[in-house]
């Protein structure tokens, strides 16, 4: 029994780090611009397919596809931003439609280019098992991307809270005109943030491709997962993303172990609701003063 639970928690932690990678790009854009990028999951997926092409066509290792993925995905992300800036009125709401439209286009584009077959890495190393202390089992890729995930969360957190551009980005999101008065060009900072979101999506995409199975219709559920975690974290909180993701990961995994995989979704959604009802602005959300 102990082994069972230990492995379950371990799997949950790894799953959590992976979820955090998926969610981080969305959380960044949402936290700083209040824009829900409904095409985020498709960006992740796109990176996965780029890795697939690199591997199946050119025999490249999935990680070696990262530069190409970053260029293409970050560019796509920036294009989404440039389109978003053309919306003049009610940007928070209208961005839903715009990014939804883009998501549909990406899904169908991916379907046309890569067909509906399922894809996943064939590079043996990623899938080989690694055994820790005789009782904990994982795939190499899970450990690798869990480590990368934690590092990336740390890096993004540092960037947002301590660097000049990160601070500028938060300033722009808080009060655009005031930010201009500080000498900040809002467009540059926002482009930067979308590019970073694209970069994060690329890393997530490689993690996805090298550990799970991809197919063209997957994007939507990735977006939803990312969004749930972002909200659970508390909008704009980067450490919250990691903690929220791990919470969901462990809850899912424990449900599967102690109860049934069929109820994973039920339990994680209930957990989500309970957290929100106790903390209406998420785990690390901040409430505004009244009056």
């Amino acid at each position, binding site marked *: 029994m102990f082994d069972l639970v230990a492995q379950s928690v371990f799997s949950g932690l790894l799953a959590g780090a992976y979820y955090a990678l998926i969610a981080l790009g969305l959380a960044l854009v949402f936290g700083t611009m209040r824009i829900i990028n409904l095409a985020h999951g498709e960006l992740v997926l796109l990176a996965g397919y780029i890795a697939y092409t690199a591997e199946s066509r050119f025999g490249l290792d999935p990680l070696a596809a990262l530069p190409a993925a970053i260029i293409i995905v970050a560019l796509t992300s920036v294009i989404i931003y440039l389109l978003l800036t053309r919306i003049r009125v009610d940007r928070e709401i209208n961005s839903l439609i715009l990014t939804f439209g883009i998501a549909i286009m990406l899904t169908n584009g991916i379907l046309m280019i890569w067909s509906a077959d399922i894809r996943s890495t064939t590079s043996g190393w990623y899938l080989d098992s690694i055994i820790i202390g005789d009782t904990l089992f994982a795939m190499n890729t899970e450990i690798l991307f869990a480590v990368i995930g934690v590092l990336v969360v740390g890096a993004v957190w540092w960037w947002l809270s301590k660097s000049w551009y990160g*601070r500028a980005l938060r300033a722009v999101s808080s009060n655009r005109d005031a*930010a*201009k*008065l*500080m*000498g*900040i060009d809002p467009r540059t900072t926002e482009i930067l943030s979308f590019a970073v979101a694209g970069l994060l999506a690329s890393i997530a995409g490689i993690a996805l491709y090298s550990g799970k199975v991809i197919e063209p219709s997957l994007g939507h559920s990735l977006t939803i997962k990312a969004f749930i975690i972002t909200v659970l974290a508390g909008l704009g909180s980067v450490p919250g993303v990691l903690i929220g993701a791990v919470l969901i990961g462990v809850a899912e995994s424990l449900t599967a172990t102690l109860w049934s995989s069929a109820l994973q979704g039920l339990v994680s959604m209930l957990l989500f609701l309970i957290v929100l009802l106790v903390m209406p602005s998420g785990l690390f959300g*901040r409430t505004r*003063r009244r009056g």
Partner: protein
Amino acid sequence: MAKLLEIDKVRAGYDAINVLWDISLTAEEGKLTCILGPNGGGKTTLMRAIMGLIPLRQGAIRFGGKDISNVPTWNLVADGLTMIPEGRMIFRDMTVEDNLLIGGFTRRCRANARANLEMAYSTFPRLKERRHQLASSLSGGEAQMLAMGRGLMEEPKLILVDEPSLGLSPLLTDEVMAILEQLKAQGRTIILVEQNTHKALKIADHVYLVRGGKVVLSERKEDVDMDRLHDLYFARDVAANRQDA
């Protein structure tokens, strides 16, 4: 004295309404120019127009002889022109300290950011007590201090200050006026919009009265006649208060 800022027959406003009507005004280098005027006269709008936050519909603005009519706000700031807006324009979702630090965003000031931060804290000790608190939790006056402190991080040549005393206690209002005088002594140029006529006139060199989007009076401080100033204020009030009579 050199004219640091020249505003030449500027028209500007919001969507359907025009607020500024061919307004002209200059600020001399190293001096404190005070803009007075009744509420809704367009003083804030004028500052926003200077800073490029709203587009000019007509006219031109020159800064140090260079036309800045179409220069984006952030470039103006980089060139040393800045505005300290009213306290509502702080970054509510950031901590007090981050608010201050971002004031030193321009490349020019980044190196001095830490030193300037300490300076802002020593000017407004209240802010230091609240440094890790979210700006949104500040009281009205504290927010006003924050806006002021943030502006001090920028090391500008020309500062536009919009009603710095708004919501400040009498003691702090005096403090703020003293800071402005000090800045002037450091050779900076200041344009001050203020409702507290009394205190503003004490430190001003030149006075403009803006009403209905137009300049109705432009005088050196020495020449200001308080009664006439009041009359000019009244001109509008009498009209607006018709119903009460």
